[in-house]
Structure formats: structure tokens, C-alpha cells
């Protein structure tokens, strides 16, 4: 069951030029939280910004009852969010949405993140790894400093393969090129991806051509976050009349189910 609670901030630090990690204690939300779900948080009191902001569960510590978010500074909301200090409280609503499903036991999974799209894949990697899946994580960024999940991925113990556009770490080029050139598709049973839609579209094509199943996590402007306002609508590929709601029917969907932009 989702809740609105005031999360006590225990850690809040900048992890790259434009990315921050925010950890808070959320005794009601954390125990329920599944990988791929998100929280809807108020980045500041008052009416500017007015609406909550959706952010994925980057990591969850069930023992501590804490949730960690990874966010990129984009506009007013994320800018103001950086002002929140440890020992202050953050107003959080969650866990929301449908998370990732787990593939049948024994399947070899590949997680592909682009930029801050790595956020939902860390908690997913942790859960998959805990359950004994063989997990490979590909993370594409501009430059090595943006490989913010490196330590977490190592600590979780998954096979982590970075790609950078400037070649400063790992494969030089797009993460989809890394996927095509360095991964043997016959060793991949299931794919999870999150990142820019153009990247996820390429991953979806890759998977379709090779008949590999998988899931992606989508973003859309949100007001309510619970399926009430019908604001976060996207068209399904199979059905050209009705719309799914990213907040409630997603944010996770089967690869190829939803129309992507670009």
C-alpha cells in the first residue's frame, strides 16, 4: 500500500556535475518498495514548484528502512531539491506504479541504462543479484565522471560494463553500440532498459530482431502519480485508440509495447 510520509534525510550529496543522491528514512514506504517503482516527491514547500516530481527508487535499504534517489538537475524542482539538508524532512508519496517483473529462474539478464536512466536499474540489479540471477549491467554516459553507479554496482557484485562517448572509461561510443558489438546475444535471455527514448527504441529493436524479451521504464509529465488525472498518457503500439498511464500501468512496460518518441 502506498503512503505519504515525511522522510528524514540522512544523506544528500552531489555525485557528479549535475547529479545528486538523496537518502531518507521512509519506514512506511521502504518495506513495500519494489524495483522499477517510483516515489512522487515535493522538491520544496510552497507553490513553486506546484506539483510533485516523480523519481525512481535508486536503492532501498530494507533493514534501515531507507530509500535512496539519484536525480539529475533539470529545472526548478530538481534545482530546489538540492537545498534540502540532512536532518530535514522531505514529503514523499509512494511506492507508486508497477515495477519490473522477475524473469524465470536461471535466465541471464542484461540491464542497459543511459545517463540518469541507470537509477531504477541499481535497485533492480540488487534484487536480481540477491535472487541469484546472472546480471550484466551496461551503462552509457558522456564521460567517466557520470558513471555514478559504479561503486554500487561493484558492491552488488554484478558484471558492470560502462561506455563513454569520450572514451574516458570502458567502451568508446554509444551504449547500444556496446550492446551490439560486445554482447553475445545468445547469452542474453532478458533485457531491462531505462534511458533516453531514442536509446530505448534502439534496445527494443535489438531485442525484437533477436527475439529476446524484456522491459523498459518510461517517463512522462505527471500530476497525480496514481492514475487519477489521466495526464501521463502514452499510446500502445498494439492499440491505436486508447492510452496507457505511465504512472499506474507503468512506468515499466514490456519492450516494444509502448510507442516511443524519436
Amino acid at each position: 500500500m502506498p503512503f505519504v510520509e515525511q522522510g528524514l534525510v540522512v544523506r544528500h550529496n552531489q555525485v557528479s556535475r549535475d547529479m545528486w543522491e538523496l537518502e531518507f528514512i521512509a519506514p512506511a514506504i521502504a518495506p513495500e518498495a519494489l524495483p522499477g517503482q517510483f516515489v512522487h516527491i515535493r522538491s520544496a514547500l510552497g507553490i513553486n514548484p506546484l506539483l510533485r516530481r516523480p523519481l525512481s527508487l535508486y536503492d532501498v535499504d530494507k533493514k534501515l528502512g531507507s530509500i535512496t534517489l539519484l536525480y539529475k538537475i533539470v529545472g526548478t524542482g530538481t534545482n530546489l531539491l538540492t537545498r534540502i539538508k540532512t536532518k530535514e524532512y522531505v514529503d514523499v508519496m509512494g511506492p507508486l506504479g508497477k515495477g519490473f517483473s522477475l524473469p524465470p529462474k536461471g535466465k541471464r539478464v542484461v540491464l542497459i541504462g543511459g545517463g540518469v536512466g541507470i537509477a531504477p536499474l541499481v535497485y533492480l540489479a540488487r534484487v536480481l543479484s540477491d535472487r541469484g540471477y546472472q546480471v550484466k549491467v551496461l551503462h552509457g554516459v558522456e564521460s567517466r565522471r557520470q558513471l555514478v553507479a559504479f561503486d554500487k554496482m561493484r558492491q552488488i557484485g554484478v558484471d558492470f560494463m560502462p561506455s563513454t562517448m569520450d572514451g574516458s572509461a570502458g567502451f568508446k561510443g554509444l551504449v547500444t553500440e556496446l550492446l551490439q558489438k560486445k554482447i553475445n546475444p545468445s547469452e542474453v535471455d532478458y533485457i531491462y532498459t531505462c534511458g533516453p527514448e531514442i536509446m530505448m527504441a534502439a534496445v527494443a529493436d535489438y531485442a525484437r530482431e533477436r527475439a529476446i524479451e524484456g522491459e523498459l521504464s518510461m517517463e512522462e509529465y505527471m500530476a497525480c502519480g496514481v492514475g487519477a488525472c489521466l495526464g501521463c498518457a502514452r499510446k500502445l503500439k498494439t492499440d491505436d485508440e486508447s492510452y496507457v498511464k505511465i504512472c499506474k500501468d507503468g512506468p515499466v512496460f514490456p519492450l516494444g509495447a509502448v510507442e516511443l518518441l524519436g
Partner: protein
Amino acid sequence: MRNKETLIQDQEPELSVNLGGLIMNNPVAVASGTFGYGREYEDYVDISSIGAIIVKGTTLTPRPGNPGPRIVETPAGMLNSIGLENPGIDVFLNEHLPYLQEHRCTVIANIAGNTVEEYAELAARIEGHRGVGAIELNISCPNVKQGGLQFGTDPELVFQVVNAVKKNSTLPVIPKLSPNVTDIVSIARAAQAGGADALSMINTLMGMAVDIKNRKPLLGNIFGGLSGPAIKPVALRMIYQVYREVKLPILGGGGIMNLNDALEFMMVGASAVSVGTGIFVHPRLAVDIAEGLKEWMQQNNISQLSEIVGVATH
């Protein structure tokens, strides 16, 4: 914020209101389109304790709604262009209404048609269904017969729609006025002449936003409805104007985010209020305001809401 010097009354203040025949346990409703069919918020609040749940606008046949993006935040407000996505009146009556009835909610149906006949037909379909307490008429829809002109901007059409619905319904009928008009009072008068039992005001202001990076309108549908605190001054002004000229109870809303906002609306003439956009920020907002109102009445020695309704218009 309890003031220690304030006398606390012995008697409980009376929060219930009669809105043109609809009895609400407290005067704070949730606005159409912002609370779905109630169940979307069942985890966050006891939905039966809400003054009234105005459900998502319903049409005769299902509507898929507009292409996205459908919402965007603006200064102290938001634009939406949902496009009246809804499963149609039958699904509402057969699938959503029973749930609300089971939970003993006070329900106001919100209906929208393309023609006067469609409004009348929608009212007829609702007639006899237990669990609907009143009908709110969304008259901000384009009238297909009149080439897309909105019903809510033409007094003659407002009269016809209200009149047609009244003929088909025994429920209180509450037209919801569009603020995108030159003269809100003449629209309110037309609604009254048509037989309205109460007035709901205001619906959203028409607005837009531009995506400067892509150099095009941000909403898929170009225009959207502006809601939230930004529109509060306009809503208050229109309610003030109508309250002084038209003797119908008013369900007021537009940007209400807290108790003080609700009090402003009551003082310019709203017998009851609705919260919409505010729900997205505080799912419990309606009941929190109702509780705050009770406390405020106690502190201010007010036993009946009628003591403050319209007090700022004298």
C-alpha cells in the same frame, strides 16, 4: 494553529451543507477530473468522509482523450488537455458507481455532451441509479452542432442545456461555468433561468505553453485548461460577481490549496468548495480543509457556515 486566547465553543459547529438539494456532510468536495472515480485515492484517505466526490467527466460513448503531452506545470498552476478521456456513461454506472456506493460516498456525476440532446440523454441514463447525489454539467465542451462554440460561453445554449437536463432528471443540477467569458453574470442568469439548482465555478481558464527548444506548443493539443493557485483571483472575482446577482448556492473552486483559500471562497459567496489541482500535491487535502474549517469555526465562534458565506460581499 490554535490560538490560546480563543474561546472554544461548547457546541460542535455544523459543517453539513445543502447545495441546491444535495446534502453534503461537509462543504469540501474534490473536483471533477482530479480524483478519478475515488478508488485511485482509496489508499490515502477515507473517501467516504469527503464532502462530495465529483467524478471524472463522462460522455455517452467512451473517449480515448487527447495525444500527449497532456499536462505541463506553469507558474503557480498547471495546464491540462486530457480531452475528456473516459470509458463512457455505461461503464461509469456499472463499474465505478457501485464501488463509490459501497463506500457510502457522496457522488456528483459530471457529464459532457456535444449536443443539447446528448446532455439530456446522459441525465436520463443516470436517472434512477442510486448513489448519484447530483449532476454537474461540464459546459466547457465544444458544441459540435454550433461549429465548436463552447456551450458555456453562450447564455442561450446554457439555458437550453440546463433546461433539457432538468426535464430528464430529478437530481439537483449544477452547471459548471466556464471563466472564459466576457460576462459571467449573464451566463449564471441563463443557468438559473434554465432551472439550475446550484452553480459550480470556475472551470479552467484556457491557456497554453511553448516548448522553446522545439519551437512548438508544449501540449499535444496546443491549448489546455489552466488550474491551480494562479487562477484563484479570477475565480474569487467571478463568484463575487455572481453571488451578488444570482440567488443560487455556489460550489466554488479554482486554486484552493489550504483552509485560508477555502475561506476566501466562502466569504465571496461559495456555500461549498472544491479542490482539484491541490489534490495532486496533498491527496488528503479535502478532508484536511474540512477538519481545519471545523477548528476555525470553533475558534471564531461560528456555528453555521451561513455566517461567513458571502460576508465579504456586503
